[in-house]
C-alpha cells in the first residue's frame, strides 16, 4: 500500500519536473514580470517595454542561429566577433549606400560561417575549437578594418534603429519575424528535419544517406548570417560602429538563451519558442537588477544561477 502511494507520488513528481523543464522558462518570464509589476516603479509603461524589447532584439537574432548550431550538437563561439566584423563592414561600405553596406555585412557573416562549417564538416574539427579560432580571427579582422569607434550618420540606419510601426519598433518586428522564419525552417523543411536527425545521431544520419556535410555547413552559414544581421541591428540602434566592444560575450548570452529555453546541448532538438523566452528572461533579469540599483556583478551571478538551473533541468531530461 505504502509502496503504491510512493510510486504515485514519484510519478507525479516526475511529471511536475517534466512540465517545469518544458515550460519552466515561460514560468520564469511570468514570475519576473509579476515581480517587476509589483515592485518596480514605472515598469508598466509602454516606453519601458519598448526599451526592453529593443535591447533583447539583437541577442535574440544571434540566439536563433545559435539554436540551430546547438541542435546539431555543435556551438558557434564566433557570433560576437561576427557582429564586430559586421559593424566594421557597415562603416566601411556605408559610403556606397545602405544596401551595399548591408550586403557587405551579411557577406562577412556568411564567409565566417562557411569557414566554421567547412572546418566542422570537412576537416572534422570540434565545433567549439573551430569557432573559437574564428572568434579570435574575426574580431582581429574587424579591428584592422576599423581601429576605433566611428559614428554612423545615415538616415536609413537611424530609422532602422529607432523607427517604429504602430508603436512597435522595427528592431522588434524584425527579430520576431526572423524567429517565426527560423521556427518554420526547423519544423517544415527538409533541412530542418535533417538538422535534427544529424544532431540526434550523426552515424545513423550518415548511414541513412543524409547530406551531413552540406547541412552542417548551411547551419554555420545561417548562424553567421544571423549574427551579422544582429550586428547591423545593434549598429543601427547605437548609431555607431564600435568593433572593440560590440558583441563581446554575446556568444555566452546567446548560448544561455538557447539552453535556458530548453534546447539540449546534446543536440537533436531545437526549441525556438523557448529560445525567444530564454532571451527575454535574461533581459528581464538584467533589467530588474539594474532598476533596483544592484551592481552589474550581481547580474552575472544571477545569470549563472539561471544557467545552472537550466543545465540541471536538462540533466534530468537526459536521464528520462
Amino acid at each position, binding site marked *: 500500500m505504502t509502496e503504491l502511494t510512493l510510486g504515485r507520488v514519484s510519478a507525479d513528481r516526475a511529471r511536475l519536473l517534466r512540465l517545469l523543464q518544458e515550460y519552466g522558462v515561460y514560468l520564469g518570464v511570468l514570475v519576473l514580470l509579476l515581480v517587476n509589476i509589483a515592485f518596480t516603479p514605472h515598469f508598466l509603461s509602454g516606453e519601458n517595454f519598448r526599451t526592453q524589447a529593443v535591447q533583447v532584439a539583437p541577442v535574440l537574432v544571434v540566439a536563433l542561429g545559435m539554436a540551430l548550431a546547438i541542435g546539431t550538437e555543435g556551438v558557434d563561439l564566433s557570433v560576437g566577433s561576427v557582429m564586430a566584423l559586421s559593424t566594421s563592414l557597415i562603416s566601411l561600405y556605408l559610403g556606397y549606400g545602405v544596401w551595399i553596406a548591408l550586403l557587405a555585412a551579411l557577406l562577412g557573416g556568411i564567409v565566417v560561417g562557411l569557414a566554421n562549417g567547412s572546418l566542422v564538416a570537412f576537416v572534422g574539427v570540434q565545433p567549439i575549437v573551430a569557432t573559437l579560432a574564428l572568434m579570435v580571427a574575426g574580431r582581429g579582422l574587424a579591428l584592422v578594418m576599423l581601429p576605433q569607434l566611428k559614428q554612423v550618420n545615415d538616415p536609413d540606419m537611424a530609422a532602422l534603429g529607432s523607427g517604429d510601426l504602430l508603436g512597435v519598433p522595427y528592431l522588434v518586428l524584425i527579430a520576431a519575424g526572423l524567429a517565426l522564419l527560423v521556427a518554420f525552417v526547423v519544423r517544415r*523543411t527538409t533541412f530542418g*528535419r*535533417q538538422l535534427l536527425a544529424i544532431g540526434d*545521431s550523426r552515424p545513423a544520419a550518415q548511414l541513412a544517406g543524409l*547530406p551531413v556535410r552540406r547541412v552542417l555547413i548551411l547551419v554555420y552559414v545561417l548562424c553567421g548570417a544571423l549574427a551579422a544581421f544582429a550586428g547591423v541591428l545593434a549598429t543601427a540602434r547605437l548609431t555607431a560602429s564600435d568593433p572593440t566592444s560590440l558583441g563581446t560575450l554575446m556568444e555566452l548570452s546567446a548560448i544561455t538563451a538557447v539552453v535556458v529555453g530548453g534546447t539540449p546541448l546534446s543536440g537533436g532538438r531545437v526549441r525556438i519558442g523557448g529560445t525567444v523566452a530564454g532571451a527575454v528572461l535574461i533581459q528581464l533579469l538584467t533589467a530588474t537588477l539594474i532598476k533596483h540599483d544592484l551592481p552589474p556583478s550581481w547580474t552575472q551571478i544571477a545569470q549563472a544561477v539561471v544557467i545552472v538551473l537550466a543545465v540541471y533541468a536538462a540533466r534530468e531530461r537526459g536521464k528520462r
Partner: protein
Amino acid sequence: MLSVSGLSKTFPSVRALDGVEFTARAGEVHALVGENGAGKSTLIKLLTGVHRPDPGGTLTYDGREVSFATPLDAQQAGISTIYQEVNLVPLMSVARNLFLGREPRGRLGLIDFRRMHREAERALAELGVRVDVRRPLRELGVGAQQMVALARAVAVDARVVLMDEPTSSLEPREVATLFGVIRMLRERGIAVIYVSHRMDELYAICDTVTVLRDGKVVHTGPLAGLDRLRLVSLMLGRDMDTVQDEGLTKFTGEHDAGREPVLRAEELTARHRLSEVSLDIRPGEVLGLGGLLGSGRSETAKALAGALPVDSGRVTVAGTRVRGGSTPAAIRAGISLLPEDRKAEGIVPGLSVRENIALAALPGLSRFGLVDEARIDRIVDTFVKRLRIKASSAHQKVGELSGGNQQKVLLARWLAMNPKVLLLDEPTRGIDVGAKAEVQKLIDELAADGLGVLLISSDMEELIEGSDRVVVLKDGAVVEELTGDQVTEDRLMRAIAAPAGESRD
C-alpha cells in the same frame, strides 16, 4: 599463475558471466574464444580490475587470493593487457611511452633521458624492433606501436599478459614477429592469455583453449587434440550430432531467384578488413554471409553500402557502376543497409517513428525543400500497417520502442526508398522471439517480392534456413560458396573451420 573460480558478473539486466572457472598457467599460451556476447570481454575486464566480480567468486593470483579494485592494482601486481587499439600516448616519444610512469631518474629527480633511450632501444631490439626511440609514437606503424605496447608489458615485469585480438590490424610479417615475441614470453614462464577469432592463429600459437558461451565455460583443455570443427561447433553452440532437420525459424528457404544478378561486387579490398571479396546477389533471393565474428561480414555489407571506403574493387547495381565510399551514391543506386548496431547507427532515438521512417526518403517527399506532410503520413501509415509496427502513435519516439519494432521502423525507412538490394546485418539480434519470427517472415516476403537480400546472422539456424545460398568469409576473404543442398549447418561449419588454403573443395 592466475586462476578464477565460481566467477560471476551481473549487470543490471543481464548475467554476463555465470560461475566461470578459468586457469592460466605460467609458461602457457591460453586461448580464450567465444562469439559475441559470450562473456570474453567481461572476463578480461574482471581479470584486469576494470569491473568487480559478484560476491562469491574467487580470483587467485600467484597462489594468493586477490581482488583488484582498479586497473592500476592489476597492473602493479603484474597483469598487463594489450588491447586491440593501442592505448599509449601518441605524441610522446617511443622511449617515454615505454617508461611512462617509471622513468629512470638522475640526480635532482629529473628524467635521465640518455639512459632511458639506451634502455628503450635495447628492450625493443630484444623483440626484433628497430626504431628511433626519440620519435613520437604516432609516427610508427600500428604493428610497431603494438610492439612498443608489448615491450612495455614485458618491461614492467608482467607475469600475466592479456592480448585482446592483437593481430586485427597487423600485416602478416608483423604477426610473425608478434608470434616470436609470444613464444619468448612463454619461455620466460609468463602466462599469456590470447583472445582471437582467427582459427589459424589459435592453432599456430596457443597451447590450451577455453571456450565461453552465454557467460559459461563450455570447454577447456589442450588445443592440440581438439578438432577444428569441434571447436567451431563449441563456439557456436551447435552440436554436430544433433543438427536438426526441422526448422525453428519462420523462413520458407526457397525462392525463385532471377538469373541476372541485381548486385555484383568484384574484388572488394580494404586494408586489414577485406581482401578481394566478390559476390553476386540476384533479385528474389536471400544470400547469406557466413563466417565467425571478425571474418569481414559487416565490413562487406558496409563496403557495398558505401559506408566503408575500399582500396580497390567495384560494385555494380543492375549493370551500372556505383561510386564507392559514398552512402548517398549507394542509396541512389538502390542499395540499403540495415546496420548491425541498430541503436548507434540505425535509429535516431529522439525523433518519432514517423520522422525515422521518412528520414532517408525526405528529399523525395518534399517540394522546394518544404516537407509534404500529407504524403509522409500516407507512407508512414502504409508501412506501419504492412510491417505491423507497434507504437502508441506515429509520433512516439523510436527510442522508446522495443528492439523488434525499432528494427521494423528501420526496414520501413528503407522500403520507403524502393530499394533493389537490402543488406541486413544481424536483423534479429537482441529482439524478442515473437518479433524475431515476424522479421524473418518479412525478409522472406521481401525476397519473394523480387528484392535482392543479403543476410548476415550469427544465428546458424537463421542463416541456413533463411538463405538460398551462403557465401562463407574468413579473415576478410571469401573461402567458399554453398548452394542448394549444400546449405546445411554441417557444411557451413566445415567451411568455417577449414584451415587457410585448404578450404575450397
